């Protein structure tokens, strides 16, 4: 977690939006990161990231007072927040970070907010206190059972959908595979499900099309049309393939921390087990 001074972004940002940053003007890659929180008075924003590639690794090595060479935002369409009744917010891994302002907004709009946090293990559960402060009901799941329930987030999500009345809306943010299965879980119940996609991006202004995804058979640009889309319409398989497209090269650029990949594979295995 990192707090960055960015007064303009802090002032303008709305839940659901993200920034793109770059650490080296000439050769650095530009990576999108969601804004977890902002303090317009202090003029700062909070970013939460996981060290998965060269840039995030270098980001983690920055110390207080260091400068980020390039930071642009806020980008993307803000979350559409309104009072609908009961909203279930599902966050997986660092997906909890971008979920935080959305959950906060949903609560302020007068919704009953149920929050599900999923992580591989206890140490990876983030923002628990801040989420607890918002939630009417908080459920924590870990894959290894070291904290909360030993389950995947889809298990409590399914139970919530079976309740009467069922939730009016679900917001799921996390690894693509998690969002995919959350969408599959809610589909039979017809509960509208919003997901926030983290595709590969370059400019973040609609110029390159690198962030495109297939939604309901149509090509959409995550950076200008999203990042949030109807989870029931997103072609997650295509998204996951596109996200993996540069894996090989990135590995060459940096000894990759395999956490997220492992997490995805693990979830896929377990989900398959669950369903059989």
């Amino acid at each position, binding site marked *: 977690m990192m707090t960055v001074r960015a007064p303009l972004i802090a002032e303008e940002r709305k839940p659901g939006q993200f920034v793109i940053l770059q650490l080296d003007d000439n050769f650095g890659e530009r990576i999108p990161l969601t804004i977890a929180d902002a303090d317009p008075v202090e003029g700062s924003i909070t970013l939460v990231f996981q060290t998965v590639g060269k840039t995030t690794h270098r980001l983690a090595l920055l110390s207080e007072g260091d400068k980020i060479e*390039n930071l*642009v935002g806020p980008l993307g369409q803000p979350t559409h927040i309104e009072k609908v009744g009961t909203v279930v917010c599902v966050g997986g891994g660092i997906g909890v970070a971008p979920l935080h302002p959305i959950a906060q907004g949903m609560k302020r709009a007068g919704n009953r907010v149920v929050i599900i946090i999923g992580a591989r293990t206890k140490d990876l559960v983030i923002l628990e206190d801040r989420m607890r402060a918002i939630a009417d009901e908080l459920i924590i799941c870990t894959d290894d059972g070291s904290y909360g329930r030993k389950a995947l987030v889809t298990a409590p999500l399914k139970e919530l959908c079976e309740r009467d009345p069922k939730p009016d809306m679900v917001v799921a943010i996390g690894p693509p595979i998690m969002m995919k299965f959350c969408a599959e879980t809610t589909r039979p119940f017809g509960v509208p499900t919003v997901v926030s996609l983290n595709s590969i991006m370059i*400019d973040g202004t609609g110029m390159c099309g690198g962030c495109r995804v297939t939604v309901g058979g149509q*090509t959409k640009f995550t950076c200008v049309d999203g990042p949030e889309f109807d989870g029931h319409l997103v072609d997650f398989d295509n998204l996951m393939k596109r996200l993996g497209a540069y894996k090989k090269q990135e590995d060459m650029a940096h000894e990759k921390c395999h956490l997220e990949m492992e997490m995805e594979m693990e979830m896929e295995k377990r989900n398959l087990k669950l369903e059989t």
Partner: protein
Amino acid sequence: MSHKSAEQLNAEARKHLDALLPRKDALKPKERMAIPAQEMPAQDPAERRRNVSEVALGYSQEQARLEALRCLQCKNAPCIEGCPVRIDIPAFVKAIADGDYQKSVDIIKRNSLLPAVCGRVCPQEVQCQAPCTVGKALKDVDKAVNIGRLERYVADWERENQSFDVPAVKPETGKKVAVIGSGPASLVVAADVRREGHAVTIFEAFHKPGGVMIYGIPEFRLPKKIVQMEIDTLAAMGVELRTNYVVGRTRKLTDLMTKDGYHAIFVGTGAGLPKFMNIEGENLIGVFSANEYLTRANLMKAYEVGKADTPIMPSRKVVVLGGGNVAMDAARVALRLGAGEVHVVYRRTEVEMPARVEEVRHAKEEGIEFHLLQNAKRILGDEYGRVTGIECLRYELGEPDASGRRRPVELKGSEFMIECDAVIVAIGNDSNPLIKQTTPELNVNKWGHIIVDENGRTSIPGVYAGGDIVLGAATVILAMGQGRTAAKAINEYLAG
């Protein structure tokens, strides 16, 4: 045609020039027309296809003066009519013939801010050189006076030989102007408005200014240091540059006026959004928009393998869809990134190709294969979602369409496959939606282009626009021209 080295071309030019120069003002039109049109020295195709240095090397002094002697100094100057910004072409060419290069650049700069850029990228064969009397008399537009190459010559001469004077700026007026985007339209506005003493801030979404000239047009066609110098000049004039600033997101357009106190705004945000064809397989891995491909290569420097963090997929066989400058650039960049084979698929014929003729010729020399009257039908992939090939259809030319070009008609049942591992889509851009999404009071047409009057005024008082965001994907010179017009109107608006 065998490749002639720069030295050979220079030696040939020197021979002619030695004979003609003593009588330079007494030459008869016939003698002028007998001077061979000067070929542009270029890097050897076999070498340049694997490097990113500039392809066209520029005339030598001898070649430039000899080429200038070909100009007939026509009284009616049809070339000026052909120039979108009406440069006094006969006068600047005459100055070259006289060996007064400073005078020559000064004449050009009265109408154009970026001669080193325009000399390189303008489609001269359909602008100033198209109506040239010499070309007409010799019945070959390729034999017209090479005005663009001469323009480039004097602009380069100035950059390399002269200490650069920072243009004079009038005393501060206390008025503030926001310029959004930093492409050619915006750079002109910044310069012209700043000269009048108004404070100017350029807001650019990317981390580097210059617009398409930086992230789109590749180094081998337009060296980045040339664009950078124009930006340094603006900075020296006191123009403030704010990169990483997306107007419409970081700040709403109208907030710049109401919250930040700007008195006028120019919107020059370009033709952002790449078009796709909406065919099957378009989102497979290995399908890129040309914008993405070129941005990865130019701005993020993917060609410096090992240094750059932004990867680009190494491809064996690349298919590029389209026939404009963007398609040519993408194809030639693919070659330089190591592709074994590059194929350009275009649905009309070479005559209809919107690309500059010189680029098409250079591309062919570099070994790029052209497939004309063909078009993609669908893109095929493997189980991992990676491109494996593209299915194309053959076309023939039918009746002329609205643009006056004959419409390509598909030949039923003519499907065939080209095996490939990358597809680059270069079929044009739609306008960027960001500002219009967050500024509903800004009027746009059905393509999303901002609507302006003849002075560049939009539907919001004090807000002006120009360049590709108004014209749709057009050219550097037209963007500059619109910038000029808008700047004039802004200066008048602020004075009033």
